[in-house]
């Protein structure tokens, strides 16, 4: 059985298009220092550092953890760098937790980041590969056809995505760290925005952000001594499937369903909508909310959009299962960090530490990340109580 571990410190940077005021080292250190301060710890208290980020071509540096060891107080300690494409922020948190859950370490620091303004993320994602057709016009171009198939299957009305885009930006307006601050956004404004990859409009897509997120994860014994309430890690799971195989359901991938089933089993969750108080879910394009509501078992197949339209996932509408109260990926997307931000924001909720986007009395929350061709999943459940 895994040892119990908890998050006792969380630190983030302000997310923005370009952090021109800090180097990459400065960016990660800012998040790390914030996390240490939140945990009331010093660099010397940390036994190991686990770093995660997405493809190195987003900044143009190979294996940047080698250069960041000074900034992260890691000299003389073990350092690991995880890379699982878009889900990396989540997998990094899970790998960091495993350092403590395995009984190997008592107190670790984990940081996920992306300073994608330094290179060109769209180029790195669409870099022409020899011997392949060069038809990739960004991640949205990959996901739009899948969304179209969801719309066909579910017969969802055209404006479900628009509703999600508005909801997440209104949530983001409660979060001073969020990149996109759009407190006055309306359904009409989103509908009128430029159609990029039909059916995805500009305002239904995530921004490109610089940012970093850090957490301090400790053993049960040390967590009970920490000054602020810990977020107990009640379950963690990862699943991968290939990008392409015959009969693959790209709309609701099996790997996502299996991963959710695993993490729910660990956390004793049988009815996610009722048992969880809120969720931070990786939704980079609006329609992924109804799709993930189904994939994660919050709604029956074909009915995720009904949950969205009912306002159930909206903090502002008093929904019973708010999703992405932080504003989610639709408000801030430093790609390598986005997964960890989901995990960290879930932890903030159950610590009662989410400020103006707090879900009242939240005790159990889900953090979710996915990546690649919707093929890599990492998820965790955190709680205010040990069990």
């Amino acid at each position, binding site marked *: 059985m895994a040892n119990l571990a908890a998050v006792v410190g969380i630190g983030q940077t302000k997310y923005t298009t370009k952090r021109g005021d800090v180097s990459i080292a400065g960016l990660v250190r800012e998040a790390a220092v914030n996390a240490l301060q939140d945990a009331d710890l010093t660099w010397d208290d940390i036994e190991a550092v686990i770093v995660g980020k997405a493809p190195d071509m987003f900044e143009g540096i190979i294996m940047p953890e080698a250069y960041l060891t000074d900034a992260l107080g890691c000299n003389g300690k073990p350092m690991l760098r995880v890379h699982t494409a878009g889900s990396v922020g989540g997998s990094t948190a899970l790998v960091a937790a495993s350092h403590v859950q395995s009984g190997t370490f008592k107190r670790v620091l984990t940081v996920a980041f992306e300073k994608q303004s330094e290179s060109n993320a769209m180029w790195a994602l669409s870099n022409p590969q*020899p011997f392949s057709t060069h*038809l990739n016009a960004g991640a949205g171009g990959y996901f739009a056809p899948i969304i179209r198939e969801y719309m066909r299957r579910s017969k969802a009305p055209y404006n479900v995505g628009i509703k999600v885009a508005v909801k997440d930006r209104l949530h983001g307006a409660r979060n001073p760290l969020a990149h996109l601050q759009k407190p006055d956004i309306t359904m009409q404004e989103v509908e009128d925005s430029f159609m990029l990859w039909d059916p995805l409009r500009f305002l239904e897509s995530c921004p490109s952000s610089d940012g970093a997120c850090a957490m301090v994860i400790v053993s049960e014994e040390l967590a009970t001594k920490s000054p602020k309430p810990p977020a107990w890690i009640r379950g963690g799971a990862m699943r991968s499937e290939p990008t392409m195989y015959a009969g693959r359901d790209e709309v609701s991938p099996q790997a996502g369903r299996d991963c959710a089933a695993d993490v729910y089993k660990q956390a004793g969750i049988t009815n996610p909508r009722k048992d969880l108080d809120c969720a931070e879910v990786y939704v980079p394009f609006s329609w992924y909310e109804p799709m993930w509501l189904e994939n994660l078992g919050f709604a029956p197949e074909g009915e995720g959009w009904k949950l969205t339209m009912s306002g159930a996932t909206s903090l502002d509408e008093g929904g019973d299962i708010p999703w992405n109260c932080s504003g989610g990926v639709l408000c801030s997307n430093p790609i390598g960090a986005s997964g960890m931000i989901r995990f960290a924001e879930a932890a903030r909720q159950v610590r009662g530490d989410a400020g103006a986007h707090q879900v009242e009395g939240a005790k159990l929350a889900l953090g979710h990340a996915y990546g690649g061709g919707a093929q890599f999943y990492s998820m965790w459940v955190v709680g205010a109580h040990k069990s």
Partner: protein
Amino acid sequence: MSDEQEVITAIKAPVFLKYNFTAGKAATRFLAQIKKGVLTGQRCPKCAAVFVPPRGSCAACGVATEEEVVLADKATVQSFTIVSIPIPNNPIQPPYIIANLVPDGANVSFIHLMSECVNEDIHIGQRVQAVWKPQAEWDYAMANIRYFKPIDEPDVPVDRIGKLPVTGLEG
């Protein structure tokens, strides 16, 4: 030289790396065939799924694929999107259709362009046909097919997309 030094906040450090790419064995066979105007896939010896373009393995079974299968250059639209932004370094003008197409005889889709069509009329299940470049321009590239255009054949029911034999609907 002035006493006040300009604070340097950024440097431009271009990265220029040269790579000599080789196609894998499976891709080499595929490209050799397409240079002759033939679209091919490879079949998994275990589950019989036909992959296009082939990468040398069946991803589901984790075994090597060897058997080459000739596919039709007719396909079915599995899904699509209308793109309004250009592709970096590609001369194509927006708005254009990128579609996931399953050629007859294959069980997975590849992406390609569609043209000679009204964008708003494109739909899932639609039948399309490859429009090739002139033979004199054929090279080791999928781009030998300029795009796919709609043809006058009945739509494929959604549950049969990716399951048609090489002879198409009638087969």
